[in-house]
């Protein structure tokens, strides 16, 4: 199918921890703070539940950007989960950068339950970044795209 005339609508996956960032997203919603519909949120108990496999799988299946949000360091509901997540994601993102995947396609932000504004601002800026990067041709398995 020819893609050239199709308007670019990015697919963006956001992993949000249940205790802070998912609640922050809820607060953004109840405060009617908009961000583009391209962002789809997956609820996980903690940022430390996010396996690098999930992120690569998203890219494999055609995601253009993946963002992970968790509690601020020091505020993890499970005390230490986001510390482990921070190291894992730092190394993973560094590896993706190393193999030539545009660095802007992955991001980690710490968003508390009280930060509806930050959640919405983060998503707006991330989506903007993905629009500027365009379609993810490097990491997507082309055959999986419709």
């Amino acid at each position, binding site marked *: 199918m020819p893609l050239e005339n199709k308007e670019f609508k990015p697919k963006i996956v956001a992993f949000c921890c249940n205790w802070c960032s998912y609640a922050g997203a809820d607060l*953004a919603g109840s405060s009617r703070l908009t961000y583009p*519909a391209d962002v789809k949120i997956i*609820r996980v108990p903690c940022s430390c539940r996010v396996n690098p496999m999930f992120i690569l799988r998203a890219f494999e*299946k055609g*995601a253009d950007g993946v963002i992970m949000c968790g509690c601020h360091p020091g505020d993890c509901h499970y005390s230490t989960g986001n510390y482990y997540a921070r190291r894992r994601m730092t190394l993973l993102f560094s590896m993706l950068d190393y193999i030539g995947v545009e660095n802007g396609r992955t991001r980690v932000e710490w968003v508390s339950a009280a930060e509806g504004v930050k959640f919405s601002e983060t998503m707006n800026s991330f989506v903007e970044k993905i629009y500027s990067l365009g379609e993810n041709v490097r990491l997507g398995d082309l055959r999986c795209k419709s």
Partner: protein
Amino acid sequence: MQRIGVFVCHCGSNIAATVDVSKVAEMSLMEPGVVHAEDYQYMCSEAGQAKIAAAIKEKNLTGIVVCSCSPRMHEATFRKAAERAGLNPYMVEIANIREHCSWIHKDMEEATKKAVILMRAAVAKVNLNAPLQAGESRVTKRALVIGGGIAGIQTALDIADAGYEVDIVEKTPSIGGRMSQLDKTFPTLDCSACILTPKMVEASAHEKITIYTYSEVEKVSGFVGDFTVDIRKKARSVDMNKCTGCGVCQEKCPSKKAPSEFNRGLNTRSAIYTPFAQAIPNVPVIDREACIKFKTGKCGICSKVCQAGAVDYEQKDEIISEKYGAIVVATGFDTINLDKYDEYAYSQSKDVITSLELERVMNAAGPTHGHLERLSDGKAPKEIVFIQCVGSRCSDDRGKPYCSKICCMYTAKHAMLIRDKYPDVNVTVFYIDVRTPGKNFDEFYRRAVEQYGVNYIKGQVGKVIPQPDGKLLVQGSDLLDNRQILKEADMVVLATAIEPNPDVRKIATMLTASIDTNNFLTEAHAKLRPVESPTAGIFLSGVCQGPKDIPETVAQAGAAAVKAIGLLAKDKLMTNPCTAQSDILLCNGCSTCENVCPYGAITYEDKEVNDHGIRETRRVAVVNNALCQGCGACTVACPSGAMDLQGFSNRQILAEVDAICR
């Protein structure tokens, strides 16, 4: 194959105005496993829940997806509804099409598309759900209250009166908190000590209450119903059982230069001291930094004069480990540091003071014995200027973005009390807004203006300049008359913003309770669960949750107590079944997961396995489901994928990813 029902909620017009709900329902029928779909006005209503129950029974559903508001709102509601209809409650998934969709998108087509995708992700997940059984855990029928101010005292009294043991941990040598430092209270002008002291005495005399003063929480482990807390009892250097509280040691102590914390550093105290006369317990502590005996090894006067032989220089910190079912945080507040507000000359002039310092100046037990006088020269002031919102409602990073809430009222109180006692003193208040919502509050403020002639000026003060003659030149503006004001004052009082006690962040981290950017503890729900932390078993009392005055604090303290009692009254709690599980055949026994588990829930055992006919003994990970809280750290640490999380399994999350990226 699952038999899934999809239920799409209109939420009145909250969802239906932006999302084509019938389209979402219709589209869901094309998803694998979906055998039933419907939409309804309010799924959470009784009628809505009845529809779910009916469909579960009629269509033999094995799983349901509710497309509605956030699972944080109604997941529990729908799980219960499913359970009543005979479905395992963990076969329910929520697609959040309100907070994450209809409320943030305007375009109907776009929002509907997104809602469909969120529905698909939830259906994909529920296809892989398995019934889970909640376990049980015990409840220790004892509560811990952190902080011994009015909030902590009230909470402790209420819990104790319900028949449960309560421990209060207070950092300073006495309970009483900020309220004990206040002179009078608004809007009735009661003497603060007169209403607080009886509560303090009641708490200390209560047979169910144990008070640990001069103590701090050191470590918290465990979870709701079964916390284990280490409390550090700092060395008091005085034996609490022997001391009679006669006070001779304090009189005779030759070191009297330590700034008095109770009087906000406006005067000094002895090295062995009780913070104030009505302190509970009435047992002094030795401030080892100020004590000559501890600094030089010589002195020992207090020990010599103590008839009871209570002074013990060798005393050491003691760690007490205790189990609790519930923990109430009541850590209170302090005023902010004014270093960044140099324009008000707080650090340059002794006659520029904070409102809390004024409380001490006006108090008979304070540094001036209750006489209103300038702290620089002891002269009686004739002209006093109050400056409101110092550090409150601040848009830059010097102060706080929030309203400290109590300042308008206490300034009206101060102004009124001064005008009442010293009618010849002029009082001027510079304010941005006067905020007096509350029972009898506005009447109180109007009395200050109308009956006591307090001069209120709407406008901000730009600068306070100390003059060579000792006066203070106040430069301000009057926004209503649109003019600049230059006013000479003898004293300037700053309505300094309040902030949560700086220690609260450390405590929140230990409790894994959420905290916001201003260091206020976050409530589980801003409106509907205002005294609970999102962390189960942790309750919030007083200003640690947000600025409030005494009546609000006492009301909230009681509410927190009721929530704690509600927990302690249970014998058993249902535990979250979304815990980690290790696949015995895939486990390498490498201990990586054990190293990242914050709960010590993973141990290793040698187990007999039958791996496709090969029988052998292997070292494998075993998860203690009572300890596991379901964070999932182990699942990612595990290289072989042996460790997985029930309810959030690898395959479930991947199915969601696939559905979203489809």
